[in-house]
């Protein structure tokens, strides 16, 4: 849009009487009403968004002249997808825009002081072991409500809103606060299950077990070949194992079991489904090498690449993470976790799938409009396809893999996704909401899987921890219905 002198005069006038927000389009109006009681949240975005009014191509009134600061977690996905695709896409849309990029691993330690000081980046990929506590940030009014992003026109087809071009459930996975609002964009479609070497199984004539009885038979067969049937790394990746336990619990008793755990419902951990799942996995744990408790995830993953471990619990980032160490002739495949009982509520095919890898826009960002726009560009087909190509991981953008040749592992994930249909095990929000509980779960999972406690004790100890969390007034409680 061309700026006429009259426009400028009117804008200057409005600015002088402090009404800039009135002309600032959908983003600001949403922000001003959506601050959730946080007074500090709204005004700081105003100076950067007082430019030309919104259009389908620029729904947030981004000013190319305002620099954008992006912080990416440089972990399994590295940060090339940002520097070589998403950031150039942003600059292409807003020629002359400057982007300050930072690719780091300790998101929490690096950014906490900046949040405390109010000097925050515009986009944060909040991920990794040392990430920021999303719940705490939301309660402190530090995050921007992303509703305007999901309501904005999509990049590829302005007649469709962003929320209509992404996998259903994505927005819900990023809800937080009370009342719940979408503060996090979870970008990566992640499926969780048991990973194995399809070539090794072919050679040995094994098929992945569909029940825990078959799992035990398989474990004996693998042991006879001097292969550890199932292994995970206790030193830093106990959560890979507790995912499996939670998935099994949900398969036995339905997603309600996991919802109850998230909602700190009374005796949620004492549920029979949890105990049965824990007992089933503890049986498999007996076949593990005790030394695995002292190893880190990459060490066990490398052992799998060397043919020493049959099944490894992980998510769909595994293939990309191990790309450099995977020998020729090793072909990743993923299968669902076996069924525990014949009366399981969910079929064997059910998998845990969730949108993950969160991106947030701080409410005090100097270029919040640019931050939202950056996320919108990420959700374009081009941005999503580039991401899949670089990271071998699927995004939440629908139909973005058209024309791409998928790797064997990703192909098996896509197949598992199709087979599962609507039988999706829900994600566990307590992992982010209640870090105290999560820490305890890691500890007790190691104790269970390496044979120091029974499934019964596991449930009891976790219930104690959950009750303690519930009784702790300093922890802000959250709830979810779906």
């Amino acid at each position, binding site marked *: 849009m061309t700026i006429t002198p009259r426009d400028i005069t009117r804008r200057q006038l409005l600015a002088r009487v402090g009404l800039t927000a009135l002309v600032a389009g959908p983003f600001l109006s949403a922000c001003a009403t959506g601050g959730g009681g946080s007074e500090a949240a709204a005004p700081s975005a105003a100076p950067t968004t007082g430019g030309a009014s919104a259009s389908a191509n620029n729904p947030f009134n981004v000013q190319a002249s305002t620099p954008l600061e992006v912080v990416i977690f440089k972990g399994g996905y590295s940060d090339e997808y940002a520097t070589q695709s998403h950031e150039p896409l942003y600059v292409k849309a807003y020629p002359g825009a400057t982007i300050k990029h930072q690719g780091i691993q300790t998101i929490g330690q690096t950014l906490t002081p900046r949040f*405390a000081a109010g000097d925050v980046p515009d986009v944060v990929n909040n991920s990794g072991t040392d990430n920021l*506590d999303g719940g*705490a940030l939301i309660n402190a009014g*530090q995050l921007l409500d992303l509703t305007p992003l999901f309501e904005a026109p999509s990049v590829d087809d302005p007649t469709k809103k962003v929320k209509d071009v992404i996998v259903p459930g994505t927005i819900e996975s990023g809800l937080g606060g009370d009342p719940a609002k979408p503060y996090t964009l979870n970008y990566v479609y992640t499926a969780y299950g048991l990973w194995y070497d399809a070539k090794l199984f072919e050679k040995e004539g094994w098929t992945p077990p569909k029940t825990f009885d078959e799992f035990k038979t398989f474990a004996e067969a693998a042991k006879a070949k001097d292969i550890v049937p199932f292994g995970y790394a*206790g*030193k830093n990746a106990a959560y890979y194992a507790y995912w499996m336990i939670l998935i099994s619990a949900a398969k036995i008793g339905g997603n309600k079991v996991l919802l109850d755990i998230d909602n700190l419902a009374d005796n949620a951990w004492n549920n029979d489904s949890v105990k049965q799942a824990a007992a089933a996995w503890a049986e498999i744990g007996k076949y593990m090498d005790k030394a695995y*408790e002292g190893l880190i995830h990459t060490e066990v993953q490398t052992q799998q690449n060397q043919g020493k471990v049959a099944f490894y619990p992980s998510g769909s980032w595994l293939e990309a993470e191990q790309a450099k160490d995977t020998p020729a002739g090793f072909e990743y495949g993923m299968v669902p976790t076996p069924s525990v009982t014949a009366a399981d509520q969910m079929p064997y095919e059910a998998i845990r799938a969730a949108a993950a890898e969160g991106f947030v826009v701080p409410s005090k960002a100097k270029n919040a409009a640019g931050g939202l726009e950056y996320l919108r560009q990420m959700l374009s087909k081009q941005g999503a396809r580039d991401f899949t190509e670089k990271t071998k991981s699927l995004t939440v953008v629908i139909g973005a893999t058209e024309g791409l040749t998928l790797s064997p592992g990703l192909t098996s994930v896509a197949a598992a996704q199709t087979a599962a249909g609507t039988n999706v095990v829900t994600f566990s929000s307590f992992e982010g909401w209640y870090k105290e509980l999560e*820490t305890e779960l890691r*500890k007790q999972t190691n*104790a269970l899987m390496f044979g120091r406690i029974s499934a019964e004790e596991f449930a009891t100890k976790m219930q104690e921890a959950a009750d303690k969390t519930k009784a702790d007034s300093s922890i802000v409680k959250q709830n979810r219905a779906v």
Partner: protein
Amino acid sequence: MRRGRPAPGAVRKWGFIASFLAVPLAVYIIFFVSPNLQALQLALTNSRGISPDFEYVGLDNFTRLLDDDAFWAAVRHHGLILLVMPLVTIVIALFFSFLLNLGGGQKNGQLRGVWGSAFYKVVFFFPQVLAVVIVGVLFQAILNPQKTGILNSVLGLFGVDPVGWLINPDLALWTLMGVMVWQGVGFYVVLFSAGMAGVPKEVFEAAALDGANRFTLFFKITLPLVWNTVQVGWVYLGIAAFDAFALVQVLSVDRGGPDNSTTVLPLEIFRQTFTYYKFGYASAMGVALVFLVLTFAALTLRVTRRERIEY
């Protein structure tokens, strides 16, 4: 009027002293005193560290400490480390420094160290040169629980089954203390050597001429004469016993595990801060830690106080 103005000489004298003191004092206040006071202030709040807004909650954080299992586990571990680690380190360091300086017998009427002492002194100091994290990473390979781990493969030659140095909850803390001793001994060998070098040689020679054997020489002569240095070493090591953060962080299972068996206060403070974002509570733990360290230092200096021997 003249009476109120200080004499020019005094101005010059005190101004001179103040000019020297101002910078270090300012640095000390800004970087040591003020953060400590701020921690004390934060310990009385419910700050989450990610926003400038917080409320004062009085002593809530301190009462909360009383039934925090991880906190007490950490305090117990510090107690054990405090009992074992300084003692073992000092005994080994004294033994080595005695050998290096006086243990080699006489030559031309002079006491000397064992053969090659100059070389050993350098070697002993090596661990001190390495950053703690590097020591941790080294020991990751040495203590690897598999039979391919360095220590376990050596033991394997003698038919010993792989030992879970850091994964056995009953053994993990002892293993970590072993690493701390390994890392600390070198520095104290050098410290005690310096202490022994400060004692006039004639004292040792006189004792040797009187027929004192090495045992008597050490316990009756050397130890009393370097007691001041030992006392300093004890305080240093005691304070180190309240740290151990980096080693536990790098080496232990699941940061302080298995089952809380290796956790230490600095690690719990780190967890409360950067995992749970309870800056107020973490500061309360920090204040508790400061009081533990101060109590220890004061007690030690009091208990080990002795008359200084003038040569």
